[in-house]
């Protein structure tokens, strides 16, 4: 299968005449951070409230650095198992915002043609596996994908994403244990945003860090600032190198915070105010922008340009998606099985 070329952030790249190699990387990070933020803001704060998007809406506001940094580490033939706050992974793999909006609106322009909604999207050609709702169900499946890559003698690896709450599921334990015993090439990326819906860590686990569980699987783990895109990039690169070297799974725990409700209908009154303020100051985008200005990688004008270009790309994508038709009712019966189904449908 041909490798998938990520969308280039043109502005960013062209502007980094700066010799520091991190300058260009920073612009790439910024592009995807802002694109994810803009796409999800549009979904959660506009289209959902306008009633143009139905069903559950979960966004990764404040956590964007995790999928952005991880997605930039993954090679095009690596297999991704995003969770429900990892939008950037799709963007980096070249899924167009048009397709994403169409997906959320249940149009045929979406990745599932309306069969499923929101983050439940995948594309086997892009090597992105769609989650099911059950938290952590992807973990054993990711182990199996890794087993297949090893079976075929490939050097590709698997990235599987999950939250702190998902680690309480039996599937999380079984999947990681199997991957560890079989030394499968899996990078485990935990977004520890300290809440699972309304449930704080103290009611989720009795250990301090998700990483404390790694010893039970004989695997290495590291904890990283989940709002520092460069730091995550470093950690995930170490994890990927470990997995690619055939040394088995490797856990990266990203400490972050969910800067919104669990889903679009959740005001999250259960979150103490001070946490919003505290973590608001740690916003990964503001942080990166400041860094870029401080290091002289970009001018305020550059940053504004990136933002405005993204905004117009997203405007266009929403328009496109709204024009994408709904599926025909007849499609209801398509693709239950490989061959058209005759039984149980009249």
């Amino acid at each position, binding site marked *: 299968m041909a490798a998938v070329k990520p969308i280039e952030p043109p502005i960013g790249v062209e502007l980094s005449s700066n010799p520091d190699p991190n300058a260009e990387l920073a612009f790439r990070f910024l592009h995807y951070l802002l694109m994810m933020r803009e796409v999800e803001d549009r979904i959660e704060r506009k289209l959902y409230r306008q009633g143009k998007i139905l069903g*559950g809406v979960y966004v990764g506001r404040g956590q964007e650095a995790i999928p952005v940094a991880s997605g930039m580490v993954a090679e095009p033939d690596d297999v991704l198992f995003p969770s429900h706050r990892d939008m950037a992974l799709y963007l980096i793999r070249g899924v167009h915002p048009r397709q994403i909006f169409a997906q959320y609106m249940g149009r045929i322009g979406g990745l599932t043609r*309306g069969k499923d909604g929101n983050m439940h999207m995948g594309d086997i050609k892009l090597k992105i596996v769609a989650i099911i709702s059950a938290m952590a169900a992807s973990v054993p499946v990711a182990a199996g994908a890794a087993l297949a890559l090893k079976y075929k003698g490939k050097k590709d690896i698997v990235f599987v994403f999950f939250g702190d709450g998902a680690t309480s599921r039996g599937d999380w334990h079984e999947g990681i244990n199997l991957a560890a015993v079989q030394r499968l090439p899996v990078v485990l990326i935990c977004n520890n945003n300290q809440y699972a819906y309304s449930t704080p860590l103290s009611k989720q686990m009795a250990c301090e860090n998700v990483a404390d569980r790694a010893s039970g699987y004989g695997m290495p783990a590291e904890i990283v600032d989940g709002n520092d895109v460069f730091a995550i990039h470093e950690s995930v690169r170490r994890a990927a190198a470990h997995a690619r070297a055939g040394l088995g799974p490797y856990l990266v725990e990203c400490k972050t915070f969910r800067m919104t409700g669990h889903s679009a209908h959740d005001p999250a009154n259960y979150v103490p105010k001070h946490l919003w303020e505290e973590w608001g100051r740690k916003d990964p985008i503001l942080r990166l922008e400041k860094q870029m200005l401080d290091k002289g990688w970009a001018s305020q004008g550059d940053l504004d340009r990136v933002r405005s270009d993204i905004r117009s790309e997203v405007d266009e994508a929403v328009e496109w998606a709204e024009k994408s038709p709904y599926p025909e*009712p007849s499609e209801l019966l398509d693709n239950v099985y490989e061959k058209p189904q005759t039984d149980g449908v009249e």
Partner: protein
Amino acid sequence: MEVTYLEAIRQGIWEEMERDPDVFIIGEDIGVYGGAFKVTAGMLDHFGERRVVDTPISESAIAGASIGAALMGLRPVAEMQFADFITCAYDQLVNFAAKCRYRWGAAVPMVVRAPSGGGTHGGPFHSQNPEAWFAHVPGLKVVTPATAYDAKGLIKSAIRDNDPVIFFEHKGLYRRIKGNIPDEEYTVPIGKASVFREGTDISVITYGAMVYVARDAADELAKEGISIEIVDLRTVFPLDEAAVLASVRKTSKAILLHEDILSGGVGGEIAARIAEKAFDHLDGPVVRIAAPDTPVPFSPPLEQAFLPSVPKVIEKARWLYNY
């Protein structure tokens, strides 16, 4: 007093917790958040952390812990955040909870509440109707209320029952359906169907949200002089076979209607009972109306085509009437 289906369930649990100190609730986000659908709203404040147990995301442990607490004499009321996740607790429910009494005489008085059903654009994992997966497990009881009155009366009976009960609450009814319930306390017996509407020409045997689809179809058909009797099963396992057969013997024509998919659905079991035990009374084929054998699709036009509809019921009823 008129209350919603949701409020009726909430009151039922609340009253049982007031009445019996051994009743407690356990599940995900049921405490400070009051549950994903707010069925347990206010219970943490009123009853405290001891009796409102917020758990990690561990459906199997929620079910297992409920079994253990029930074995020790408590009466847990567990919540699955969505019925679809009950699959994660399947082994505990069908192998542990269901079989304790039969194997070694140990009672497991527990309730598992599961918000089920579609029509809410929930997609494949927030819309399923899992009742048939449990209506095949001796030792369990499977309850599927359609009205506010029954919802309250049945949740109270379920909590008092000394056997494990899976209680399916239809999400589409939570706030849409209201009903008058008495101020004084009452219960509704598990295992008894009710005649939701009397009629003479055709028996429509159904439960849950489809009771209202049957009702709307019956209203239309009445204008054509077709008299529909609606039997609301209320409990789908064990079955109230007598009630079903009585209605069919009266009308001699039967339609099984459910929102769950056709193949392997509860309707098949009931149609089979009719075809075996009321055969001589039948004046026409036993008709089934159900969702097609597909996952529940997300996009509105697809979901609309998926769900059994009033026109579909009218069409089939006309056909059967003229048979």
